């Protein structure tokens, strides 16, 4: 039978969170399920979100926390599976730095990129430590320059996510993560999005996609992280990937899978209460206007 074509666009260039897609491809699970999946690297979650919304890709694997703002501006996307349900936003600082909590950032310089999920939360987060932008310098830097700026020690901290950043920093500026959730921020992390139209039209295929991803992540969670690493390296032979960092990224990604509300639920299943907290936080940060409905942002219809 003819295979159904699906284009999946990832967030950035290869890193651990992509393991689910690449493993499934390597293992031939998509093909078995009758799917012909093309996996594209991306240029940031926001960019991928725009492309999926414009119909240039069927599915995006992005940070779901971006959805409320995107929808508020007219995007017609929904998350149909959420893997990283716990807030992974974090500030990287030197591993042996005395910094522990927000208030310790007084007088420090932090770098972040403008389209980062951090952006709407910055002021809210600073306030938790009694700070504002006059007391802590926030500099916006392009993703391409972000790491260089941080490793060249032009900044004290880098606002990113723990799973993506900490393993990479290990080689050049060993770092630890100060988590945003400690300051009360709730933010749904990586998951799959598509337009409402696609979700309606390709329900079958998308369900299979979710199912295969559940299988892939469960497989890795159950001790096969190295196979996930192999899959990424095989799928992206030219990227010269660092296996150790990839393994750590996968491990950390999985560590952020569950919130108390999703304990015991299938991988990818999203809890209404988590979204409520996230949206309240976004509203408090001024990123969405009151009157939101959580059901606009996600659906569990495709999660078995």
């Amino acid at each position, binding site marked *: 039978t003819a295979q159904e074509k699906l284009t999946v666009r990832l967030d950035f260039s290869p890193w651990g969170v992509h393991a689910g897609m690449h493993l499934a491809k390597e293992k031939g699970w998509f093909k078995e399920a009758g799917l012909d999946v093309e996996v594209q690297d991306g240029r940031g979650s*926001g960019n991928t*979100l*725009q492309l999926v*919304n*414009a119909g240039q890709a069927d599915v995006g694997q992005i940070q779901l926390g*971006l959805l409320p*703002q*995107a929808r*508020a*501006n*007219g*995007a*017609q996307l929904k998350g149909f599976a959420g893997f990283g349900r716990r807030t992974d936003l974090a500030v990287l600082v030197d591993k042996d730095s005395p910094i522990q909590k927000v208030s310790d950032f007084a007088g420090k310089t932090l*770098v972040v990129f*403008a*389209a*980062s999920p951090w*952006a*709407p939360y910055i002021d809210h987060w600073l306030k938790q430590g009694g700070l504002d932008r006059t007391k802590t310098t*926030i*500099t*916006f*830097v*392009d993703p*391409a*320059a972000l790491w*260089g*700026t941080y490793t*060249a020690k*032009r900044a004290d901290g880098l606002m990113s996510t723990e799973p993506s950043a900490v393993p990479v920093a290990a080689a050049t500026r060993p770092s630890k993560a100060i988590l945003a959730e400690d300051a009360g921020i709730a933010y749904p992390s990586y998951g799959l999005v598509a337009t409402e139209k696609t979700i309606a039209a390709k329900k079958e295929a998308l369900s299979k996609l979710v199912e295969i991803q559940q299988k892939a992540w469960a497989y890795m969670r159950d001790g096969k992280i190295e196979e996930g690493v192999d899959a990424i390296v095989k799928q992206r032979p030219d990227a010269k990937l660092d296996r150790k960092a990839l393994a750590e990224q996968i491990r950390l990604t999985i560590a952020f899978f569950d919130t108390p509300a999703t304990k015991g639920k299938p991988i990818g299943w999203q809890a209404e209460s988590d979204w409520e907290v996230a949206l309240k936080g976004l509203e408090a940060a001024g*990123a969405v206007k009151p009157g939101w409905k959580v059901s606009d942002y996600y659906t569990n219809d495709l999660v078995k």
Partner: protein
Amino acid sequence: MRSTLHEIASVLGVIAAAMVLWEIGVWILKPPPIILPAPSVIFAEFLQAPSYFLRQTAYTIYTTLAGFGLAAVLGLVLAIGIVHSRLLEKTVYTLLVALNSVPKVALAPLFVIWMGTGIEPKIAIALMLALFSVVIDAVLGLRSVDPDMLNLARISRASQFAILRKIRLPNALPSIFAGLKVAISFALVGAIVGEFVAGSEGLGFAILTAQGQFDTPRVFVCLLLLGLLGTVLFYLVEGAERISLPWHVSQRGHASGH
């Protein structure tokens, strides 16, 4: 004077007409506003926070003009060097060509790492983007001298400097202005690229922030302001050209029509 006002009016007219066409297009095709908002929406967005946008614009103008000014001066100096010295032609010219082929967007991160996140890397990027066309056009202009004009200077044993100042430079002005017109546009682009890569001010920064928030109308306010700003800067250079070159055929033909 009257013809200048006339000129400005007609440029504004063209821009206004383009806006109207765009508005009508949006009415008919109804693209989602996150992809392409209507001018009316963009305009409303601007009116919500005009002072914010104008502040960002002012910052960008400053960066642009600084980069452009440096590019004009440095470009001229390099062109003069290249025309006069075989050695400089071989070295500077070649390196400039190579350097210009490396996209600033790719170099920008290095600039930030080297120069920090202040205004310097932005000016540097604006300068680098603007420099090339100044040099290329100035070199052409400085070389395209009637040999008899050089003979005229040489028979009076004019110094190289006098030849440069009284013959080569005035003769090259039309070409130099063509280079400057391209340069002012690219200086603006360079300033924005610089603001993209680092910083917390300027229209480039405003675009990035708005993109991050999926606020397309706001992105378009910035894009339109950029277009407008670029147009104004370009026509300022063209105005300077007209004032400086009433003697040149390209301007004479221009003034009287064909």
